[in-house]
């Protein structure tokens, strides 16, 4: 063991301070929002938002608990879109990636190019919008939340790298036993690719979970708002919180809109924060593999 020199100690001090400052800056906004959601409305008006509630109150959450309908529905929409979209996306991507990774597939390079080109050139927002609304009639449909994000060239190519590493001998022996390529894919390739598919799937699920833009473009019907767009509408319209509370029939004399805004934000973040410790290692793994191989 080499004794620590002055330089090492100096580096350690600077390094630890640097990391702690950045990590704290990453954490503080969350505390700020949590604190604001727990502050009494009149205290917000008087003193503004703060790191620690000036006057502690759970009024905002109490009101939201009385009228949970819209939030639960919005979570429901997001959960449906994220599960169906992710499952479909991973299956279709994996199937495509397996075919593209197989050297016996004659057209694999041509199809890879067709897929690759979509990542360097796009028609842009407006032609897609017109296609979706005018020709596919997907306005106010859950499919409008699923389809625009469904597949990405990047996911398919990452899976292709994984599948290219499955030993040929395993695939060959299945072939000799008389299995066709699709059976091989279902029975052998999928079980062997579970870790890769989980990683891709989690990236895709997060993408769906946090998406609000498709809803802004294609959804007018309040019943179909996903959670992020529901939050967006609550943050950006003075009226929506009042109407949301009133329409539920609960009579509240003075609606604390400022703390409710922050309370809805907290509620929208909670599922992510709870799952974060369990899922983050998959993201780290995906990024590490992507950095080294991609």
């Amino acid at each position, binding site marked *: 063991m080499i004794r620590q020199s002055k330089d*090492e100690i100096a580096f350690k001090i600077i390094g630890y301070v640097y990391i702690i400052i950045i990590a*704290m800056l990453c954490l503080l906004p969350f505390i700020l929002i949590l604190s604001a959601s727990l502050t009494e409305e009149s205290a917000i008006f008087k003193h503004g938002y703060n790191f620690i509630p000036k006057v502690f109150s759970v009024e905002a959450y109490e009101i939201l608990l009385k009228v949970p309908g819209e939030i639960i529905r919005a979570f429901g929409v997001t959960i449906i879109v994220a599960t169906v979209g992710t499952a479909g996306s991973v299956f279709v991507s994996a199937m495509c990636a397996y075919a593209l990774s197989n050297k016996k597939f004659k057209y694999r390079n041509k199809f890879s190019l067709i897929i690759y080109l979509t990542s360097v050139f796009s028609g842009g927002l407006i*032609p897609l919008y*017109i296609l979706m609304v005018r020709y596919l009639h997907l306005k106010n449909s859950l499919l409008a939340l699923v389809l625009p994000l*469904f597949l990405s060239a990047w996911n398919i190519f990452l899976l292709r790298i994984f599948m290219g590493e499955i030993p040929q001998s395993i695939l060959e022996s299945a072939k000799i036993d008389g299995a066709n390529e699709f059976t091989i894919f279902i029975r052998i390739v999928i079980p062997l690719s579970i870790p890769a598919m989980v990683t891709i799937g989690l990236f895709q699920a997060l993408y769906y979970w946090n998406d609000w833009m498709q809803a802004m473009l294609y959804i007018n019907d309040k019943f179909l708002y996903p959670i992020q767009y529901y*939050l967006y509408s609550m943050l950006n319209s003075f009226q929506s919180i009042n109407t949301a509370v009133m329409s539920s029939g609960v009579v509240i004399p003075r609606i604390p809109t400022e703390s409710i805004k922050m309370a809805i934000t907290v509620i*929208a*973040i909670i599922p992510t*924060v709870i799952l974060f410790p369990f899922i983050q290692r998959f993201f780290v793994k995906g990024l590490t593999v992507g950095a080294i191989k991609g």
Partner: protein
Amino acid sequence: MSSRALKTEVPRLTKVPLSVDLKKNSIFLLMVAPAIIYFLIFHYLPMSGLILAFKRYNHVDGFLSPWVGFDNFKFLFVSGAIGRVTFNTIFYNVIFMFTCQFITLGVAIVLSEIRCKGFKKIFHSLMFLPYFISFVVVGAIVYNIFNYEFGLLNTILKSLYKEPINLYEMPNAWILILTFLNTWKWVGYTSIIYLAGTTNINPEIYEAAHIDGANIWLRIRYIIIPSLLPLMITIMLFQLGAILRGQFELFYNVIGNNGTLFEATDVIDTYVFRMLVFNFDIGMGTAAGLFQSVFGLVLILIVNYFIRKYRKDYALF
């Protein structure tokens, strides 16, 4: 002799009729079909919709609206709109790129040196947290801090007996805010990529330098940074290729439709979006989008040319 033998063999190999080929590959073709059909409908079909850039769009005729040649482009250039949003897009992306790379590189270097596993894990996780939340929440954070009436910033200013400031009247302040938020969102994510890069450092070289008396700063300068450089260049080249793509979600949630801030904060993506949703000027918006796509593609080709020349294994195609 051998060349003649080759000549007679080659045609036989390529003359397999297409139908036989299709049959042999039929299962593979069926397996790629869903993905290919998806890309054809949702990526290639909209590309053909780019002709709207040369048309005066009306809702009755749709894609069959009358042609107007380059009128939309003329207006975009003459009005100065495209110049402003293109400048802003490039400007922000360059600032974002350098701040984020620089800060992240520091994080990765320090984390690769820290031996305390628990500290490393907890603090790196905290940095990764912002990646997992949506930009809508980022918008809520901005509201919470910079809002004129109740924002944290003015709370602090008032407690120091200073005048509250209205940032929504100060366009240039948002350059700093947007840069901070972008780094905030991506620092954990990017540092993971760099941290993966530091594992490629040969521990023997590193130990040897250590024993030879190279102190930590020298080791960072002569071993760690050079070994991360290829990765850094690759990442920056990728970002250079995408320099015309704005981070719509960041800009739209932070700035919204705040007209007074547009001069300093309007990027191509937000401009196109406004043309679609508020101005209903489909032709103009598509023209700006086409400009972005074509210019972007040219950039990618140039960048790729240089990667191919200097680091062939990293080339995109």
